[in-house]
């Protein structure tokens, strides 16, 4: 096993991933969700989209995933920021999440973050 110190992939929406954001950091471990727009077999680079936001995902380490355009996928991995804010997620794991209610997911994420913040402040108290 890699290590129990492996960082969790923090769930974010693609819209949140912009240069001014706190999460926009080299090597940040993230969990991203979006609809597959394209997949390049040679480079194993997938492009996922959520609304107007898009992200490239390097899937070279993934196995047993059937990349179908129009399907929804979720990836966990590390952010690689290249010159000119060219961003790609280097995926460690990925899965098809067709059927996921993305609106519910995003609203629940807000509730979950509030809960996490309360948890953190109670631990500090």
């Amino acid at each position: 096993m890699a290590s129990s110190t492996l960082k969790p992939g923090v769930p974010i929406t693609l819209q949140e991933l912009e240069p001014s954001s706190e999460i926009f950091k080299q090597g940040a471990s993230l969990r991203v969700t979006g609809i597959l727009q394209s997949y390049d077999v040679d480079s194993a680079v997938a492009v996922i989209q959520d609304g107007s936001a898009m992200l490239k995902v390097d899937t070279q380490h993934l196995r047993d995933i059937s990349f179908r355009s129009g399907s929804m996928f979720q990836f966990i991995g590390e952010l690689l920021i290249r010159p000119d804010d060219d961003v790609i997620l280097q995926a460690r794991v990925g899965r098809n999440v067709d059927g996921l209610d993305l609106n519910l997911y995003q609203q629940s994420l807000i509730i979950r973050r509030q809960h996490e913040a309360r948890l953190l402040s109670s631990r500090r108290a």
Partner: protein
Amino acid sequence: MDSLHLVHVKLLAADLLTLTPRHTSPASFVRGGRTVARAEVVGVVVSRDRREKFLRFLVDDGTGCVPCILWLNHQYLNANSSSDSDPTGEMASKMSEVVRLGTLLRVRGRIVMYRGAIQIAARDVVLEEDPNVEVLHWLQCVHMAKECYDLALPSV
């Protein structure tokens, strides 16, 4: 008598991994003054290490990575039958098949300490095929914390 220690408490990883251990046998932990001994987590498998006697894996729910161990050795399980709820070797072997990188799992089991870190000794490992199940688990964790786990015990 606080009965929280008898059930599998639904927790996010960040909550589970910051429980305070008590020096009891079998192991138990304290959360907000209440004793917990079993937990239920839902997340994605991000690491997997299968050995002859056990399968060790990490479940990532976005707030943390929960180390889980599934014992595959039936003799070991019998010799350490602190609980009649531990799975048999055959059941464990079947459950281990669903532990694959990238799959969404629900794991229930005893909370134990291993080398100073909290982990779950898995009793149930369930493959979740509906991605919405994870969202429901988040909301259940938040709801249960507010409505049950965070409430002070009534004084006797």
